[in-house]
């Protein structure tokens, strides 16, 4: 239970998935940080940057032009419009 299962998908391709300890995203109400054990949330994202801290390795930064994300039993699904990984080296980490 101590880690989040994160999946980031864009409309026509898969972006990133893996285990993480913290996910930061920008919603219309402000930034939200999701830690393991978070209550189920369905939120609309603003254009901006997502920050994911994986269990191992360096932080993953993703640019997204809006979208939404859902948190449900430590499973985070981020549906982003035109999402791009900022660091190509971490792509396909699974």
């Amino acid at each position, binding site marked *: 239970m101590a880690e989040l299962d994160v999946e980031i998908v864009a*409309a*026509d*391709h898969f972006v990133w998935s893996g285990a993480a300890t913290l996910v930061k995203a920008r919603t219309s*109400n402000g930034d939200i940080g999701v830690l393991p054990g978070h*209550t189920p949330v*369905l939120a609309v994202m603003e254009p901006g940057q997502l920050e994911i801290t994986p269990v191992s390795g360096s932080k993953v930064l993703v640019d997204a032009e809006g979208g*939404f994300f859902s948190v449900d*039993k430590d499973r985070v699904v981020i549906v982003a419009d035109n999402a791009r990984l900022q660091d190509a080296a971490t792509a396909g980490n699974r």
Partner: protein
Amino acid sequence: MGAQIRVYRQKIASTQSMGKIFKAMELIATSRIGKARSRMTASLPYANAITRAVSAAASQSEVDHPLTTEPEQVRRSAVLILSSDRGLAGAYSASVLKQAEGLTELLRDEGKEVKYYLVGRKALAYYDFRGREYAKVWTGGTDNPDFETAREIGATLLEDFATDFAEGGVDEIHVVYTRFQSMVVQEPVVTRLLPLEVVEGDAPADSSELLPLYEYEPEPEEVLDALLPRYIESRIFAAMLQAAASELAARQRAMKAAGDNATELVKKYTRLRNNARQAEITQELTEIVGGADALNAS
């Protein structure tokens, strides 16, 4: 050289060059199917995630969202038809259009007006030729659809959905497309996009697992506002990808059949040509022998 032989030679040459074209088109279609199918698979995670979220939001919240509530009276329906840009794909476009005709009849019987939205030049040609009206048409790239087009179609449909009936708006939206089941089976189907009939994914396997009770950020209405257009876009995009894969598969099969037929024809014409040549030789010989006999007899 006899006239008959020349005719057969010409037929063989033209059939052979057609056969080459069919073969090339078959190979092109085959090589593109793989890509179309992988795009179909690539769009699945998005579609699944969005369907799940919409299901959860629509089934749990007591929000009366215009997109989820059934109108009391449906007077006009929008029908989006996904056909192809090019022919030479067997009955692909014809069967989609036939399906659309069936749907139209059904809707008219229920006393609804039908407003068409077309995708692909084949559908456009069909409606233009019959002088029928349509609201909007998108052409180009049906065998390789991009998300921008899906977004545009979604936006247009939603806009008309939000418009009043009196001003030309629609009360429900149907999509006619070809579902890609396998390389050999593609089936034209009709789905209703709006009002929503949210179905949870394709896999009801873990139906025992309840959908989580979400908190909404910012408000349920706003979340639905943001979710539903995306859901519609993703459904349309998925339909377009299925249609593209089906089109390519249909084209591949049609071109294979055409190529096989060309080979058969070449074989048949070659026999006929040989026959004609042999007949000509025989005739010449009989003439010579006949002439010689006549000379000897005299």
